């Protein structure tokens, strides 16, 4: 199953649409023609930097001739439009292929060289272009360049009029078009070949990737867009100056690219706006401006090697953390009564080593003859998922359940320490100890099932029994995790940090049931869940001592019940049936018809009956084999 939703189904859609709309309506809101001028420049440099990212970032080609190619685009426009009187629009369009052609001359040296030498040969190439331009003064104007290049107009309407609004929208269309095209290219077959060649050149060749064709395409496509940008820039500033070849503009564009973040396309686009606006706003500082910008660049390189795009990702994570923890804090107070109505059990907050955890515990009482039961909920869910069990078992058993960190109304945790199966089991241990609960049954759902196995395998004798539902026990991660689950399901979403609205609904519907009045709170909890909890849990699967869990299941030190929906979309039922259970109730996993991934919720009567029977059997004789 290849999971690669089209752009309009990803989280990138809304910020992109908002930005595009803001840029589109900007001239109607602000009349400031100087700001408009800066935005035009920013949009041009966004194309220059984003197209460079294709060869530099994605292709790993340290092609330092890119800015010289921009200059060639300007001159191509100048020569075509002024010297030969070609229609300016056509001249801009032709600048693309002309520059692509010029760039393709670089392919031979680039193919033969690596790393540093590519930088040097491409710098040499740009110097050659520069020298050609200044030596052919009868065509290019030599060191003084070309001036009064034709401007853009349609039907006599000059684009510079009305505060350059015509140029603004032309730049806008060119930028949206170029960046969109570049984005699509990175996701195309060509884009994959480009990355393949960067990641592992020889392996790529051994898989049929033609190095020279791919490199040529990379250079030509990247140059095509910078050529168009150059042509447009020429029509806008109406000057073709050899200064563009200089180290100043190279530094400017390189800083846009690297400060933005390599291999991201979007990073350089954002950085183009920031750096152009920043550098203009400091214009009055003279030489200090260049010094400050250079210091900024070095600081970004040292402290944020991933560039602004990395910063954007960090901010996004911060925002998600803040939003989800505020949601938890609000619900903790405001919806307390609602939750108690669902569970029928009062809630308390317990401080643990991993933050404040919301726990329900009906407390010991005389009528609680059976052992206590600890319920552990699954990924992106909450303790209220077990409401049907609370109602059924509360009279005879002491019941404990809690919201995992980053879930329900518990605190968010620190991702590295808290969001993993080991820490979850630690929390369960701590809570059991603080509440003075002894020898409980542990019932774990999905991720909670792993937590339950981790918890009980540490000391099987301290637990009355363990039940997993919707869980595939593992020996080796991630191999068994892969085998134990169904690829056609939406398991990919279970580890995805940022879910779109559609993905949230999909995950909630598959993890539990389609939305209904009864399941609405489970759906709501997917949104509340700290996305880092999903991501880190999956990436930290490998640190858990899975063999110990499997050993416990095999050696049968503890009564085990495996109760899965027979139609669980996530599980590989065959895999689970073949596991070597040493002391499993009934001698094999128990299928709950129509239970899907949450049989205790979808088929509570059957589930509770089976669970009750298991409890009775396990209490009567810890070794189920004898009673079976």
């Amino acid at each position, binding site marked *: 199953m290849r999971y690669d939703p089209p752009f309009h189904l990803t989280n990138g859609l809304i910020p992109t649409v908002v930005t595009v709309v803001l840029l589109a309506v900007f001239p109607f809101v602000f009349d400031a023609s100087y700001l408009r001028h800066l935005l035009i420049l920013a949009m041009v440099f966004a194309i220059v930097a984003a197209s460079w990212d294709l060869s530099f970032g994605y292709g790993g080609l*340290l092609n*330092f001739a890119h800015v010289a190619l921009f200059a060639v685009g300007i001159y191509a426009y100048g020569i075509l439009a002024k010297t030969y009187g070609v229609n300016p629009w056509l001249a801009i369009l032709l600048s693309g292929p002309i520059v692509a052609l010029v760039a393709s001359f670089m392919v*031979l*040296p680039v193919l*033969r*060289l*690596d*790393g*540093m*030498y590519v*930088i*040097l*040969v491409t*710098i*040499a*190439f740009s*110097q*050659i272009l520069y*020298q*050609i331009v*200044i*030596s052919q003064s009868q065509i290019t104007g030599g060191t003084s360049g070309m001036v009064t290049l034709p401007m853009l107009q349609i039907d006599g309407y000059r684009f510079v009029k009305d505060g350059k609004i015509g140029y603004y929208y032309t730049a806008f269309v060119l930028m949206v078009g170029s960046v969109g095209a570049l984005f699509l290219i990175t996701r195309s077959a060509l884009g994959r070949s480009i990355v393949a060649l960067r990641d592992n050149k020889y392996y790529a060749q051994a898989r049929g990737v033609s190095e020279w064709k791919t490199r040529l395409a990379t250079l030509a496509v990247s140059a095509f867009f910078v050529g168009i940008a150059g042509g447009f820039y020429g029509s806008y500033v109406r000057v073709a100056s050899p200064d563009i070849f*200089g*180290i*100043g503009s*190279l*530094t400017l564009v*390189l*800083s846009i690219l*690297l400060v933005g973040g*390599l291999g991201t396309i979007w990073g350089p686009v954002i950085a183009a706006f920031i750096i152009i606006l920043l550098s203009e706003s400091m214009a009055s500082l003279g*030489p*200090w401006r*260049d*010094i400050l*910008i*250079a*210091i900024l*660049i*070095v600081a970004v*390189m*040292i402290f944020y*090697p991933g560039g602004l795009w990395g910063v954007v990702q960090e901010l996004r994570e911060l925002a998600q953390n803040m939003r989800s923890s505020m949601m938890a804090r609000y619900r903790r107070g405001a919806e307390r009564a609602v939750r108690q109505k669902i569970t029928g059990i009062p809630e308390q907050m317990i401080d643990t080593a991993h933050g404040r955890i919301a726990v329900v515990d009906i407390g010991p009482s005389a009528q609680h003859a059976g052992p206590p039961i600890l319920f552990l909920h699954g990924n992106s869910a909450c303790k209220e998922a077990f409401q049907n069990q609370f109602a059924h078992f509360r009279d005879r058993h002491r019941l404990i359940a809690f919201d995992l960190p980053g879930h329900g109304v518990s605190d968010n945790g620190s991702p590295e320490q808290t969001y993993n199966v080991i820490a979850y089991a630690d929390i369960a241990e701590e809570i059991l100890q603080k509440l003075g609960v002894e020898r409980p049954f542990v019932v774990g759902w999905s991720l909670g099932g792993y937590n339950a196995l981790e918890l009980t395998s540490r000391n099987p004798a301290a637990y009355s029994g363990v039940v997993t539902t919707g869980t595939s026990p593992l020996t080796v991660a991630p191999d068994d995790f892969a085998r134990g689950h169904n690829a056609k399901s939406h398991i990919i979403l279970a580890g995805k940090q940022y879910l779109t609205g559609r993905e949230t609904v999909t995950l909630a519907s598959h993890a539990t049931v389609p939305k209904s009045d009864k399941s609405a709170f489970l759906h709501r909890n997917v949104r509340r869940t700290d996305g880092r909890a999903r991501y880190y849990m999956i990436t930290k699967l490998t640190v858990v001592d899975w063999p110990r869990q499997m050993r416990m299941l095999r050696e049968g030190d503890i009564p085990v019940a495996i109760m899965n929906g027979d139609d669980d979309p996530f599980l590989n039922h065959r895999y689970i049936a073949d596991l070597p259970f040493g002391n499993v109730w009934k001698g094999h996993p128990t299928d709950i018809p129509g239970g899907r991934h949450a049989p205790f919720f979808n088929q509570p009567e059957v589930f509770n009956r089976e669970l009750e029977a298991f409890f009775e059997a396990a209490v009567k004789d810890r070794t189920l084999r004898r009673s079976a």
Partner: protein
Amino acid sequence: MSVESFLFVLSGGIVLGALYALMASGLAVVWSTLGIFNFSHGAFIALGAYIGWQVSNAEALGLGHVAGLSATLVVMFAAGILFQQIFIRPFERKDNIIAATVITTLAGATILQNAMLLIWGPRAKQIVAIAEGTISIGPVAFSGNDIALIVMVALILGFAGWLLARTRTGRSMRAVAQNRQAAELMGLNVPLLYALAFGLSAAMAGMAGYFVGSIRFINPTFGADPLMKALIVVIFGGIARFTSPIYAALIVGLVESFTIFYLGLYWAPAMLFAMMTVVLTIKPSGLFGHHQRTL
């Protein structure tokens, strides 16, 4: 072409070659030791020229050439080490060190250039000739300054070559250049050696700046052309040995000199870059043998 003009062009080529040799050797020391390319080398050359002017020139401190050269040497050595600590050190162990140091050394060049503009202003300066008069050898008269330049460059290069080849520190630097891990295992102080290499490189750039400043006008962007020339020379000759860029510099100086004479001023750089591209494409390790680092 008359013998006189031939010899005139030849001598011009040798002077250029000597200056290029000094610029390029400094660049090559950093490249071969740290494995990076220092785009601030041009700015170092300009800075050296300004410091030299400040100390030696009558309009400034007026202490003469000996003080000027000594001050340039010392200050540039220290500046090189400082520069390396700020702009190179943080990236030394990163995977993207090559690309990262390209941008940070470019940024460093911008900072130095603008700082020089702030300190010394945009007006051009010139260091007075190191030696006066002319010396006639056969039919050609060499200026005393040219002869002095050639002699001093030869002395400096000889001294630097001695440092690298004959002293323990210099040999350690070559060891680091070949294999950083091995050098560390041998107990060499790699950060110190890197700093020393950068200091040496900057001091050589400063000297080059001083000499160029005595034949051309100094301004803040005055290092850009020398940087490009040094780049061509280093590529052309490779960095297999300390002497590789020196030979290459002489060839480049002569080619430039003769190209200017025959084809005109504008063609010389294009000719050189074309030569460099061809050399890189055919023999990436430079004309003089194998390079030791794969970058």
